[in-house]
């Protein structure tokens, strides 16, 4: 069985480089261990929510919002990772992704990944 692990934490824009580095090392340890034991699929850090864009469908109309705007009744239901040219390209893809069974209610939150950090 494959499982997804969602990492939640308090965003701290003024985090000092030393702490950042030590957290990064701990992640690498876990990833290395997972790789050695043959269970590793993928792991990526996200850029902070200040870089997020939400595409929400409202009665067939699609609306863009600056920031993460999932409502509390909406739960994470899946994910895509796509290699897009830029944010406009990503928004076009987000518009294609179905977000709900009940009249298409829901939204897609687009968050850029940190390029070249883990590879």
């Amino acid at each position, binding site marked *: 069985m494959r499982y997804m692990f969602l990492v939640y934490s308090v965003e701290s824009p003024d985090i000092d480089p030393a702490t950042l580095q030590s957290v990064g090392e701990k992640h690498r340890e876990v990833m290395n261990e997972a790789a050695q034991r043959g269970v590793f699929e993928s792991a990526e850090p996200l*850029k902070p929510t*200040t*870089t*997020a*864009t939400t595409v929400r469908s409202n009665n067939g109309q699609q609306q*863009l919002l*600056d*920031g993460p705007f999932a409502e509390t009744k909406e739960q994470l239901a899946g994910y895509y990772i796509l290699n897009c*040219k*830029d*944010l*406009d390209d990503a*928004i076009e893809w987000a518009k294609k992704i179905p977000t709900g069974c009940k009249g298409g209610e829901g939204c897609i939150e*687009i968050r*850029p990944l*940190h*390029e*070249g*950090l883990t590879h």
Partner: protein
Amino acid sequence: MEARLAAETVFREESGKIIASLIRISGSFDRAEDATQEAFAAALTTWPKSGIPSNPAAWMMTAAHRKLIDQVRRDRTVRDKEDAVRYEIEAFAPSSEPNLEDEPMHLPDDRLRLIFTCCHPALNREGQVALTLRTLGGLTTPEIAKAFLLPEPTLAQRLVRAKRKIQEAHIPYEVPPPESLPERLVSVQAVIYLIFNEGYVAASGEMLIRTDLCAEAIRLARVLRELMPKEPENLGLLALMLLHDSRRAARTREGKLVTLEEQDRSLWDQNEIAEGIAILDDAWKLRQIGPYQLQAAISALHSTAKKSAETDWPQIVAIYGKLFELNPSPVVALNQAVAIAMSSGFAEGLRRIDLLGESGELTNYYLFHAARADILRRLQRPAEAAESYRSALELATNEIERAFLRDRLKGMENLTSRRNHGADGDNF
């Protein structure tokens, strides 16, 4: 002194163009802004000594370009020494290694890319407005903060956040492709109109600064028209703002709001009116109506009426009808109801307004209550009018508008008590 003034004028007129071009070359808003500021500073020190150059705009562009090259070279040296800052560099757009020497200097205008990026719908409205004024308008952060009555750090924060999002989320520095152009243009027009309205809402004591915002919005709309002259709504927006702006001097008297009906029409700026109407005519020729053109057309009908009683209200009612087809909002319907009151009688107007009130959508909109109060006042039903003025006062926030409502309320209360006294008199 003359050289200083020349430098300031050139900076004001050219900085948008220069920044726009340097962002394309360097891929960075901050670098472009810094280089442009440095070029301005250089002009301030050089021009008084060596005289104003024969082509000051080109001088400024060349200087900014050189400053950018210096900056990038400096950064490269630092980067070579410190490989550790790799993390930061990775976050930059791929174009962070610009081919500076190859860049031709006077390319077609980059301001179009800039305006679409600043008004990108993935940025929040506050960020769009701040960034547009900062980069295209060439306003300083303190100037923008002052105009919006905000603390400087708040505004600086908005700018930093917007720029960071552009960079980190890779918002492209491009004119949108044809399929998304209409939608994106709406966003640009909305930002410009918001800047104008921010300046147009009468606010006591802040008149001068706010007038600057109107002038800036008009200037930006002129740039937009220059860059995309075949977009009828660009013309409609510019016409609308010119026509509104033409009445600025008449809108307040001794710090008090004066209604359109009561304005001294000799104070209206006839040049702005003529220009607005001419631009609107050009827009019609493109044969694609839109909300800004229709609103400008309504404004033009007011502008051309010699006196208030000569206003072509039936025509205004018809245009609001068209506007409602494009934008079926209760606010448009309310404006139409007011025009109906003026053309078909106050009783019919009141009936329309009360019909609109039934949905409850306008309950928290102060102009709904103010409009209703005004019609009741005209119908000589002061007690009911007073009640609606009170509802309006509970919701209105702008001090000049509140003072106006209080005056009207007092008038209605005086009438009511006089009538009651009159009735008492009859009983005795």
